[in-house]
């Protein structure tokens, strides 16, 4: 399945683009329906999927009762996250994953290697017109 890149303004006056997907989460423990769609950045540099605590709270997670972990970004500063089991909805697919939650995330969510890239072959092609990327589900025995 092919998706177009999403464009965003920059403080330098132009536009930037990200590979992003409309994403939903559901609380696996409560078998609740998925939340409303939000935009999550596809980020092969992220070890795991991380979402803003605000989304986790909306599906009934007690964020600080999750397993504690830490991540770090380009600043090198550690950020505390809490891990929870959730159902991840991306177009055409539902995955059971363990994801991190933090209120320090400057965006709604990041789709990283564990939980997302382990399930998809992702082909980025920013040179095409329109620029986009393809997702191909990987089914491992």
């Amino acid at each position, binding site marked *: 399945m092919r998706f177009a890149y999403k*464009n*965003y*303004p*920059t403080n330098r006056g132009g536009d930037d683009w990200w590979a992003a997907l*409309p994403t939903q989460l559901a609380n696996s423990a409560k078998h609740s329906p998925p939340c409303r769609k939000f*935009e999550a950045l596809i980020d092969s*540099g992220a070890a795991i999927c991380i979402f803003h605590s605000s989304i986790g709270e909306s599906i009934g997670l007690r964020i600080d009762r999750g397993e504690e972990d830490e991540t770090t970004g380009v600043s090198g500063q550690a950020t505390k996250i809490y891990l929870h089991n959730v159902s991840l909805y991306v177009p055409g697919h539902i995955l059971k994953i363990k994801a991190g939650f933090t209120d320090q995330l400057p*965006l709604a969510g990041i789709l990283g290697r564990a939980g997302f890239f382990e399930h998809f072959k992702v082909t980025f092609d920013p040179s095409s017109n329109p620029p986009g990327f393809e997702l191909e589900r990987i089914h491992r025995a």
Partner: protein
Amino acid sequence: MPATLNIARSEALRAAPLDSWIALAEDETRIVATGATYEEVSRRLDEAGVEDSVIIKTPKSWIRFAV
């Protein structure tokens, strides 16, 4: 930047409140709800009867993002 990108989307995002949660309409050209939390935006969409939208968290500034 290729002309095929959704410039109306960028303009809507540029006009959006920073460090907030917003919802874009299905065609991603206008804001249909804003709030301080994801839950608040979601509730406002429910109240307005908006079925299809996408929720975005806006950053404190539109500094280019590197993760």
